[in-house]
Structure formats: C-alpha cells, structure tokens
C-alpha cells in the first residue's frame, strides 16, 4: 500500500551522476524545469528527452524505479490532459457530444502532460541519486547568499534533513500500527468514505503520539550534544566543485541555451 512512494527515496550508487556536487545537481534540475516550461515546440522536447534519458542511463537507476514514482500522480496528469484538451479554443478537429476537441487543445494538452511527466522524472532523478544529507547540504549552501536578507538557510536545511530522515521511519511506524490494529480486527479498506475516514482514527492517534515522542527525544538528544545551528558550524564533508561538476553544468547550460534559441527563432 505504502510501497509506491519513491519521492525522497535514495537509490545508492557510485556513478558520475551520484558523485556530482549536490549544488550543481540542484541548479541543473532547476534549469531543466525552466526549459520544460518555456518549451512550445516538439523539437526541443527531443533535446530534453535525450538529456534526461542519457542521465538516467548513466545513473544506472532502473527505469522501472522512476516509473514507480509516476504512478501515484497518474490521475493528476490524466486530468490535466483532459481539461486542456477540452478547454482550449481554436480550430475544431472533431466533437464529442457538447465538447469540442481543438488542434490547439490537443497540442497544449500533450505539452502539459509531457511537462508534468518530465518534471517528475527530473526531480525523481535528483532525489534518487542524491542522499538526503547532501541534498539539504546543497540547498543550504545555495541559500547562503540570501541569509543577508533574512532567509534562515541553516534552519531550513536542518528542518528538511529531519523531515526527510523521518519519512521512512514514519512509514514503517504506520505499517506497524496498521498491522497491530488489523490484528484487533480493524478494517482500513472497505466501507464508504465516512467509514473509512473514521477507521483512520486508530491509526492516526498512535501515529501522532509517536511522532511527537520522537520529536521530543530528538530535540533532547540534540540539546544534550550542545547543538547550536548557524554561525561557525563546521561540517564533516566539505562541498568542493571539481572538473566534472563544471562540465556537467556546461552541458546543461548549452541545452537550455539551445532551447531558448529555438524558442526565439
């Protein structure tokens, strides 16, 4: 039931993609997302596909694994597609009852669906090839320049690390509590919406209690080791840009450049 959640999951490996500096990977992912949203033609999609599929290939993450991340969002993609097909005005291709299917609508819908799919694939690849620790490290470093205008970079990164760290724990805990209540005859799967919502009480109450207990324990453990965020905190792993990081960034900027050029021409 909870097994399809791959967001935030790390797929360990030792490839170039895994070893890239997290800052570079985040920047490249952002560039990738920006290019996705300025694309309005099929040719650049070819570039983007080649780029992302090559990256997946190099990273040795099984494609199945990435598709699993798409599954829970399948309906959102489908609904976006349908709405776009029917809600766009233009040259009418054919009609289904009172609804018109237009050429523009079909094109826009396909682009929107592709955008979403690529967006998910791209971000999944980022989280699958970057351990949560280095991911938050990267975010913290990228946010550092904004500290001057009052962005609490370190605190934000710390919160994210902790949240990511506890996703698997909470999933495990949910599984355990669910099983324990099922052993007492609880039924989480049948009945109407109201009944199902009610059946969640025996799951959610213990889950919240345990989450608060864990938060409490963690705070205490951090306090006991004199945790102080922010200033003068050194780190075990220094982020240092190497040649491969510059190369990767260069390739990505080239890609985005091509797409912008294509758009302008």
């Amino acid at each position, binding site marked *: 039931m909870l097994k399809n959640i791959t967001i935030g999951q790390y797929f360990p490996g030792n490839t170039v993609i895994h070893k890239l500096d997290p800052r570079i990977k985040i920047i490249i992912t952002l560039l990738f997302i920006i290019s996705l949203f300025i694309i309005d033609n099929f040719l650049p999609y070819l570039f983007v596909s080649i780029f992302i599929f090559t990256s997946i290939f190099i990273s040795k993450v099984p494609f199945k694994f990435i598709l699993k991340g798409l599954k829970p969002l399948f309906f959102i993609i489908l609904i976006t597609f349908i709405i776009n097909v029917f809600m766009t005005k233009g040259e009418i291709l054919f009609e289904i009852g009172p609804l018109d299917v237009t050429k523009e609508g079909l094109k826009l819908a396909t682009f929107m669906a592709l955008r979403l799919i690529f967006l998910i694939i791209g971000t999944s690849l980022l989280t699958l090839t970057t351990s949560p620790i280095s991911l938050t490290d990267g975010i913290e470093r990228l946010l550092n320049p904004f500290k001057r205008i009052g962005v609490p970079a370190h605190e934000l990164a710390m919160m994210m690390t902790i949240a990511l760290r506890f996703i698997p724990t909470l999933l495990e805990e949910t599984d355990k*509590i669910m099983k324990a209540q099922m052993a007492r005859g609880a039924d989480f799967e049948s009945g109407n919406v109201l009944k199902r919502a009610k059946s969640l009480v025996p799951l959610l109450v213990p889950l919240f209690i345990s989450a608060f207990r864990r938060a409490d324990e963690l705070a205490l453990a951090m306090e006991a080791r004199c945790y102080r965020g922010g200033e003068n905190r050194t780190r075990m792993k220094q982020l240092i840009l190497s040649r491969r990081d510059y190369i990767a960034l260069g390739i990505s900027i080239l890609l985005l450049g091509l797409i912008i050029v294509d758009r302008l021409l």
Partner: protein
Amino acid sequence: MIIKVEGLTHIYNPNSPFETKALDNVNLEIAKGEFVGLIGHTGSGKSTLIQHLNGLIKPTSGKVIIDGVDISAEGANLKDIRQKVGLVFQYPEHQLFEETIYKDVAFGPINLGLSEEEVDKRVKEAIELVGLNYDKIKNRSPFELSGGQKRRVAIAGVLAMEPEVLILDEPTAGLDPKGRDEILKQIKKLHQDFNMTIILVSHSMEDIARLVDKIIVMHKGRVSIVGKPKDVFKKADELEELGLGVPQVTYFMRELKKRGKKVRDDIITVEDAKEEILRLLRGNGNA
C-alpha cells in the same frame, strides 16, 4: 495440530535493491495447548514468522494452515483468523488510542461485531485477566497509566477477542523486573487455566526455560533447532554459534560438572539447580 507451516518463504521488497529474504523454507507444527518459545538472534525472522500466523503478511511461497484452514489461500476469512489467533506486537502500548481504557479494550470485540452485552462481558474479563482492577480503571485514559500498566491494557485488548492462540512478541521488552514477572505470570496463568496455545518470542533464555514446553530456534530465516527446553539448552555451543546462549544457571552447572562435580547437565532453572546442588551436598556429606 492447530498451526502448521509448510515451506514458508517470505521476501521483503522483492526485485529491488532492498530485497531481503526474511524467511526461508520454514516448516513447523504447533499443537493445541502447547506453550512454545520462539528464540533467535535479532533479524532471524521471528516477527516476520508470527505475522504470517494471522494473515497480516502473505507468504511469498508456502502455506500457513490454522485449524485445518489454509489462511494464505485467496479469499480466506481473515477476520475469523485474527479472532482465533491473537497477536500482541512488540511495545503494544504504542497502539492505544481511545479516550478510556474500556473503549480501547472494546475495540477488538466491536470489530468482531459482537453484541453490546458480550462486548461488556469480554472487556471486564480481559481487564481482570491481566491483573488490573476493572471498576477502578475502566473510565481512565490509557495515557495516564504507567508503562507496565499500559502494556497490560494493550494485552487485554487482544485477550478480549478470546483467541485460541496467543502470540506475544517480546512482551517484556523495556519493563522493570517486577513488571516483567507480573506479565509473565499472567501469560502462564492463561496457559494453565484456559489451555490457551501460546507462542512467546523472547530474548531471555531464563524466561523461556522457566515457561515453555517447546523451543523453536530461528537462524537467518530458517528453523534451526526444535525441541524440549532441556534438550535444546544442552546444545550450548551450537546456540552460541547462532548468537544465542543458555540460561545463566545452565552455564553454572556446566562449569561445576567440568570441575568434576557429579551433577546433571540438563538443569535449566534455578529451582532445579537448587535441588541438584542440595542433592550433591547431601551426597558428599554422607560419603
């Protein structure tokens, strides 16, 4: 046979980098009214095994047969099975959720669809079975109890379903000696008074030696030794290789024997050891 497991294999997260074979071709039989101790190094598959016994997880391959019914088959009535086989998880107090102890213990019986009077009767019995005072406690919140009391309420929640088989996963973990002894005493009583079939998972060789009729030793997902406590604990070296041990008093008697005293080598409880040492002393005195 009330429980029969045939060729049971379970693989977690198959076809992924996190694939683990938690059970590997497990075969075992447990008779009605038996008190079985399940031991094994951490990660040996004990918890995985017992969750199969009431259909909470499905075998990757193999069969689990409870009272003649194959519960791993499609369309098995799981509610029936879960009533028949009560499972108390590790740290069961973490699953308490109701406002009052009464309501929490009643959760299982209500899920079984019992009448109000029946629920009432069972809740009262169950709370008293675990040694708590029903009238004093029924309207209190489960969250204001001590750790040991909470755990007993949680166990009562399973007993209220009146299972024929009671499985407990390390029921004494994290309790003080007094709390531990009390819980074990109640479990023993359930076995003696109601002839309940009991499976106890424990890391304490002393508790196992004192209570059970039969020991099942798990190692790396397989059943490696099955037998009477006296016979199993004779194999101290073998058990140590599996990351386990024997009761302290068994080590002690072994040492005595090594030093040339004529004592039996199948002593597993302190009481037996006392008898044996007294016998030895008397024997020496007479000679």
